[in-house]
């Protein structure tokens, strides 16, 4: 069977319904097939595998699948498809002067990416598209030729909404009260979807409301947010604080953070009502010791490795990130979802992260 046929079968399964063991049986053949495919189609990836001592390409379990440091996509454009088959090149966000990751998507991978986001989000939002407030300014999606990662994220989520309303002003990022009030008059009686990047929601919605002393009331609102906690951690704001201050300012009870990265399509780990990030059927997570990369047991902090069945066009199916996380359990979250669940606690300090990839670079031919 082709890899595509195996991936197509995943969409017939419940997103969070298989036990870890059942899921491993489903996805391991796909992950192994991807290792072989990329070895054959991407020369650089093939060379990397060659210098590993381990000659086996068929892993017996997910933890034995070879992985690349996510940083590699900042320095190298790794592709397993001909240029004529490249549909688009995604880039990560980054401050000026910083190198950005570049990820090559072909048509199949791009279609799988969209389908997967929809499958996962439908689990939390249902199939109906809800009136949608976007906690950002409209200019962020203006330039269609080059979206920022933020713009791309907003567009991806826009599939789940209707009557899309950007509530910040282009010039000063202040709340556009006129727009917000008329939206709420129309829709706040029913379910409303809100989406924004974690830091934007914190600074330009929660803190902005607190400063003006004006409250809004969206009791049926569902906030989805993503983008990382780095800036909030600097202000000593944790997830609990974020949620309670959001509720006080807006009346919103339902909040789902999600963890993901541009370098691995299909890996979207959404937070359940107990605050745990869950691995869907399409992907998995392993926590590794930052010193020797051995697999860590549950409840011990280590580096997050992510595995996904979807990267067909580039060798990104198994990546070691620079994020620190903790595996919390398997198949037994009180929310009822099966499979692994975890939390992400921050980033590896810069110097150590560089150390990891230097070690890696030295092994390259």
């Amino acid at each position: 069977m082709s890899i595509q046929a195996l991936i197509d079968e995943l969409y017939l399964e419940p997103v969070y319904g298989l036990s870890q063991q059942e899921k491993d049986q489903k996805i391991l053949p796909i992950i192994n097939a991807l290792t072989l495919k990329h070895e054959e189609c991407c020369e650089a990836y093939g060379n990397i595998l060659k210098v590993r001592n381990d000659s086996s390409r068929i892993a017996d379990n997910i933890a034995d699948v070879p992985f690349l440091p996510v940083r590699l996509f900042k320095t190298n454009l790794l592709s397993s498809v001909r240029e004529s088959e490249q549909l688009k090149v995604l880039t990560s966000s980054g401050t000026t002067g910083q190198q950005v990751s570049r990820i090559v998507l072909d048509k199949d991978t791009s279609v799988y990416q969209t389908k997967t986001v929809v499958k996962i989000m439908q689990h939390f939002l249902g199939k109906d598209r809800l009136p949608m407030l976007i906690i950002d300014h409209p200019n962020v999606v203006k330039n269609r030729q080059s979206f920022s990662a933020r713009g791309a994220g907003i567009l991806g989520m826009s599939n789940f909404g209707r009557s899309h309303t950007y509530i910040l002003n282009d010039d000063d990022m202040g709340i556009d009260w006129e727009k917000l009030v008329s939206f709420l008059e129309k829709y706040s009686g029913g379910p409303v979807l809100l989406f924004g990047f974690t830091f934007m929601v914190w600074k330009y919605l929660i803190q902005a409301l607190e400063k003006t002393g004006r409250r809004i009331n969206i009791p049926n609102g569902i906030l989805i947010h993503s983008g990382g906690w780095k800036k909030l951690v600097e202000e000593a704001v944790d997830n609990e604080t974020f949620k309670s201050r959001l509720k006080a300012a807006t009346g919103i009870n339902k909040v789902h953070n999600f963890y993901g990265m541009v370098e691995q399509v299909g890996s979207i780990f959404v937070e359940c009502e107990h605050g745990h990030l869950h691995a869907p059927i399409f992907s998995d997570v392993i926590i590794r010791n930052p010193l020797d990369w051995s697999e860590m047991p549950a409840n011990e902090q280590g580096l997050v490795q992510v595995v996904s069945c979807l990267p067909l066009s580039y060798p990104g199916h198994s990546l070691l990130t620079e994020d620190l996380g903790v595996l919390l359990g398997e198949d037994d979250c009180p929310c009822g979802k099966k499979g692994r669940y975890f939390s992400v606690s921050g980033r590896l300090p810069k110097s150590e992260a560089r150390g990891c990839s230097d070690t890696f670079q030295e092994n390259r031919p």
Partner: protein
Amino acid sequence: MNNNELLTGAFSEALVIDKSQVTNELQYNSIKEWDSVAHMSLVAALEETFDIMLDTDDIIDMSSVLKAKEILAKYDVKF
């Protein structure tokens, strides 16, 4: 106007392309005018034109003009 004309009008207006380009074979992402941004305008235009509400599955499945007709058929819009 019949439904075919309405559909062609909605596509041409939302994607800002000539009506002659709106054929059954026209596919999402095959021309630069039909990208993910335009897709959202297209969905809004179809909903307004035919007075229906599409769900998230419909939006993802709408990969060509022909596919759009199949999806609209579910909402009793006949071609």
